[in-house]
């Protein structure tokens, strides 16, 4: 069985037909991880016992002749920012190096309830802060396509695991582009749902008004299957939406003829690499040839998205990360005499440079005398960004853009310049700020064979339309399985 191209439906049907067992499949994925993950670094912790135990229950269903759940035996990886009961969860940080959560996050629980087999926890930037995965306190992840390049971030391990065939699907989290940008860099599909579509219970909080959980997969159909599984109201997350979950999978193949696609000129300006531009323009032409109407639109406040994001996200992070104080869990400094010393030294030893930078920026932006000038100002601009999309969505059903202005860059290329790194998210942050869903779909390669991603953005809670467009593009371009 070719693990590289295996999809969710293929896993389920080959287990149901007795061509393989869930246990054998899990074991072959572990062999592949052991053979290949060394130089890539996609996984931080493997969960063999948990995986085999789960796989056994699936195999028992087969031998009893029972119906298999939709994700039966599907080997998945979980970004290490989602807590897993009894399974080490680090958020890519030294401060949680030895943390064993006493409960499961809702998204993981729903995946396992649908039959998925959790292989392990995937590497990421510390507390999901980064665009290259170089901020992981344990090791960077390398792009399976070219080991001298980054996989993107912060869900770099989740993207690399799928791209290298070391998981059929993974979960990532997206606060400023952390699912879509690595998906684009690694040549896989990455979906960020609407804010509130998927419960964040058990997601280690970075910026609560911006954090989303979503899937990274090989195909659009797989992304729809995972989303259908994890979406929906959860009483344990008061921000989860009390709205019915449509069947994203059944509607996938509905024709896209007549849909209006907006092309915002602000996403095709300075900084966009020519090879990315031509691939994305070709993808838009392809969608036009499928009967979509292409409509030029403007999102005039786009240039303000990154500064807005870095004020809002860091302010929320400074508050969310206050809990890491060495009292209840995680690292505690060994060399302290007083309580105040314990807090300060624990945090200095436990957090990496980028996390400290963001806590400092956020604390500054919220501090007396600066709150109005920075935090409140950014929240007002956020309203303007939302209005841009409101206007655009009066004229169009979805918006198409590049996912990232460049393909995967080299390790070390941007680590000395935080601002240059922040600009890697220039096309993705706005959707997080506005709360709309977005997906990145592979749309070609550069001459150096580096993947390029097409981003499709849709109205709040209209993942169905977004997925339909992504699916018809994937089908017509013959992509999706060629990893």
């Amino acid at each position, binding site marked *: 069985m070719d693990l590289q191209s295996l999809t969710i439906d293929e896993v389920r049907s080959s287990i149901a037909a007795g061509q393989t067992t869930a246990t054998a499949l899990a074991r072959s994925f572990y062999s592949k991880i052991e053979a290949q993950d060394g130089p890539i670094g996609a996984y931080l912790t493997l969960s063999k016992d948990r995986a085999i135990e789960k796989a056994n229950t699936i195999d028992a269903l087969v031998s009893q002749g029972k119906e298999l759940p939709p994700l039966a035996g599907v080997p998945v990886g979980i970004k290490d920012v989602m807590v897993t009961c009894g399974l080490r969860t680090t958020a890519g940080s030294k401060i949680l190096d030895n943390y064993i959560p006493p409960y499961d996050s809702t998204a993981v629980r729903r995946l396992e309830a649908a039959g998925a087999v959790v292989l392990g926890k995937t590497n990421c930037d510390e507390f999901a802060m980064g665009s290259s995965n170089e901020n992981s306190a344990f090791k960077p992840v390398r792009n399976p396509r070219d080991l001298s390049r980054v996989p993107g971030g912060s869900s770099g391990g989740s993207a690399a695991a799928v791209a290298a065939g070391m998981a059929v699907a993974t979960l990532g989290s997206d606060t400023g582009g952390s699912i879509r940008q690595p998906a684009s860099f690694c040549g896989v599909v990455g979906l960020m749902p609407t804010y509130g579509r998927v419960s964040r219970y058990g997601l280690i909080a970075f910026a609560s008004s911006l954090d989303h959980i979503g899937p990274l997969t090989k195909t659009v159909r797989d992304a729809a299957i995972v989303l259908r599984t994890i979406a929906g109201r959860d*009483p344990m997350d008061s921000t989860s939406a009390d*709205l019915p979950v449509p069947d994203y999978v059944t509607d996938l193949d509905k024709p896209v003829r007549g849909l209006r696609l907006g092309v915002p000129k602000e996403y095709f300006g300075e900084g966009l690499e020519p090879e990315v531009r031509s691939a994305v323009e070709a993808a838009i032409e392809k969608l036009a040839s499928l009967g979509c109407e292409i409509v030029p639109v403007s999102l005039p406040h786009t240039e303000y998205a990154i500064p807005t994001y870095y004020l809002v996200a860091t302010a929320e992070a400074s508050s969310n990360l206050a809990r890491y104080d060495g009292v209840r869990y995680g690292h505690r400094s060994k060399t302290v005499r007083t309580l105040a010393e314990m807090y300060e030294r624990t945090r200095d030893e436990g957090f990496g440079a980028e996390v400290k930078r963001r806590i400092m920026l956020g604390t500054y932006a919220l501090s007396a005398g600066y709150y109005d000038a920075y935090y409140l100002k950014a929240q007002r601009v956020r*309203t303007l960004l939302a209005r841009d999309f409101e206007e655009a969505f009066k004229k169009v059903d979805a918006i198409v853009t590049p996912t990232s202005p460049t393909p995967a860059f080299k390790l070390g290329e941007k680590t000395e310049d935080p601002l240059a790194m922040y600009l890697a998210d220039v096309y993705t942050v706005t959707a997080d700020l506005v709360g709309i869903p977005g997906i990145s779909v592979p749309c070609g390669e550069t001459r150096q064979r580096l993947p390029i991603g097409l981003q499709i953005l849709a109205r*709040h809670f209209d993942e169905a339309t977004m997925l339909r467009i992504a699916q018809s593009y994937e089908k017509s371009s013959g992509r999706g399985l060629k990893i």
Partner: protein
Amino acid sequence: MKVTEDDVRYVAALANLELTDDENRRMVEDLNSILDYVDRLNKLDTSGISPGGQVAERFAGPGSERAGPTSELREDQLYGLRPSLPQTDALVNAPKSDGTFFLVPKVIER
């Protein structure tokens, strides 16, 4: 220069961070360069614009009369009669505990 080394020390104290001298110097540079960049927000007149923290609340999902994330509070009752975390589970990750409490360095001297 918006931020000085003293400002950085003050903010670090607010954030409960003990930065080394090297980290302090680097932080002054980084914060100034980021704050210079975010200054472009001041080109926008935002008077009369309300701050948009929970943007999704302003939008209803397709076919629904209710806004996105629920804005109302839930009933004040134990959800699903879920028991609290057992004490041993809650303490299992504690760097230091006596089996009943989290232990920290003494706060009050007598």
